[in-house]
């Protein structure tokens, strides 16, 4: 079974973000493989370890997004595809999905795995749009997944619990954080990742035009939200609990 995993390089969510014209400044930030994508890579590795096949990591981004692909390769993925093109600066969800779908088709797949949503944009529509463009079903929000006799079985997170979902392959599945425990790359894994094959492609290599890369939404304005009134903050000297209780009384909730 050949699995494509969509990954994204994002500014480290543990550091404060900087904006320029309403967009995240990706040039100044410390960039990392989206922690949400590590669950997708781990899920793919577990499936091919049990059933054979190859894991291809697919990403769109600037040249340095290669670091995120190498990270996934050092976890154990077999090869990578990076689509990088100046025309893609400012790409929106639909453009991103077009590019990823074309790259996945190029790589070949029985299953596509992605995180539920990125940790920087939280858009969450890219995997579903990729599924439609590939003409395959989508099983989303998987908190558990397995493949039995060529059918994907998923426990899909719901508001009140979960649904059992069955889906024929090929398909797109999105995994939640917590679906597994992503492995840390070993030293050997890191060394091997350096020589694993990664294709770097331009839009034209995938048969896509500049029109396909044109975003259909633009930031018109960014304004600070009205601030909440500055609150009171104090070191607890033993009287903190009493102050909180007074606050609750005053708010008439006790």
């Amino acid at each position: 079974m050949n699995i494509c995993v969509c990954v994204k390089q994002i500014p480290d969510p543990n550091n404060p973000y900087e904006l320029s014209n309403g967009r995240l400044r990706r040039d100044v930030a410390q960039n990392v493989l989206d922690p949400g994508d590590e669950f997708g890579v781990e899920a793919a590795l577990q499936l091919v370890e049990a059933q054979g096949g190859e894991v291809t990591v697919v990403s769109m981004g600037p040249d340095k997004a290669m670091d995120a692909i190498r990270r996934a390769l050092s976890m154990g993925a077999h090869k990578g595809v990076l689509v990088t093109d100046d025309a893609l600066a400012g790409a929106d969800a639909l453009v991103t999905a077009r590019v990823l779908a074309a790259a996945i088709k190029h790589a070949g797949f029985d299953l596509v795995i992605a995180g539920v949503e990125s940790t920087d944009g939280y858009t969450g529509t890219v995997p579903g749009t990729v599924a439609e463009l590939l003409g395959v079903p989508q099983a989303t929000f998987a908190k558990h997944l397995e493949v039995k006799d060529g059918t994907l079985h998923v426990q899909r997170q719901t508001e009140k619990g979960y649904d059992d979902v069955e889906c024929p392959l090929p398909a797109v599945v999105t995994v939640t954080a917590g679906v597994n425990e992503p492995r840390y790359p070993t030293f050997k894994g890191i060394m091997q990742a350096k020589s694993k094959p990664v294709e770097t492609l331009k839009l034209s290599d995938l048969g896509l035009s500049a029109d396909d890369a044109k975003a259909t939404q633009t930031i018109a304005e960014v304004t600070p939200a009205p601030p909440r009134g500055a609150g009171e903050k104090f070191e607890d000297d033993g009287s903190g609990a009493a102050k909180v209780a007074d606050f609750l009384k005053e708010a008439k909730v006790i």
Partner: protein
Amino acid sequence: MAKIWVYGETAPDSTGFKTTLEILTRARALGGDVSAVALGPGSTEAAKAFGEHGAATVYASDDAVYGEYIAGPAAHALTTLISEHTPDIILFPMTYDARDVAARVSAKTNSTVLSNAVDVLDEQTGQTAIFGGAQIVKVALEGTGPKLVLIRPKSFEAEPSGGTANVVPVNIEIPDAAKGAKRTQKHEVEATGPNLEEASVIVSGGRGLQQPENFKLLEELAALIPNSAVGATRAVVDAGWVPYAMQIGQTGKTVKPKVYIAVGISGATQHIVGMKSSDRIIAINKDAEAPIFQLADLGVVGDALKVVPKLTEEVKARKG
């Protein structure tokens, strides 16, 4: 006049249904020609509520196929309706199911899609909030297909208009190709106590509680506060301390209680987007630099494991 559509969710006790009514209220205020689409069991019944909240027309089908398969049938039907009626913009509640449908429709109709919107200003302008709500971003929506906008729960108050919708039955044949991912069984956890979305007070815990057992400190406190519930951050849900139903934030519930007590919560964006609209916020955290304090009306820099048991005693004393 702009044609504004609302993609409705129909299960009466769901967040999606409530969010649909909120969005219809907003759509009505925009002053366009407002219609709703309701697909799946319960749609004809839900259409009444949609009409009461501002939909002049509801395209409805009670066909079980829409609930049985994920996204495919609904995306097919919605796309068919779009080509017949050419709406300018379609507003969706930001839920699991509606997000999946919008994602597929985006590809089918070449439509731009905006997620996590907190408002829509007209048929080509949406608004989102970033950095946990610190910045408001106005987004111009362009392109040829109808604009697709996913709106976060509780972005507006739902208010009935007293209207009645003209219900137009939808009879669209769903091709087998759209029947892919099939729900075979539902598992629901029986909820106890007031639910998070309705609670007046929420006591919520994060990593700062150190161990899963310490959640009982929050339960003991909540037990003394009328109409209160206990919530959690994604970090502790992912770690398996408490069930997902308790998760508040981007990928969990959006809440707006009178008082939100954040215990051992640092204030990651993921969490803040789900609770920042609470009337009053109390934060208890060891780290004086934790971002949660920027939102807090009252911030206690201290050890949650010491402060909370004491607080429980103080609340008991004040209740007399």
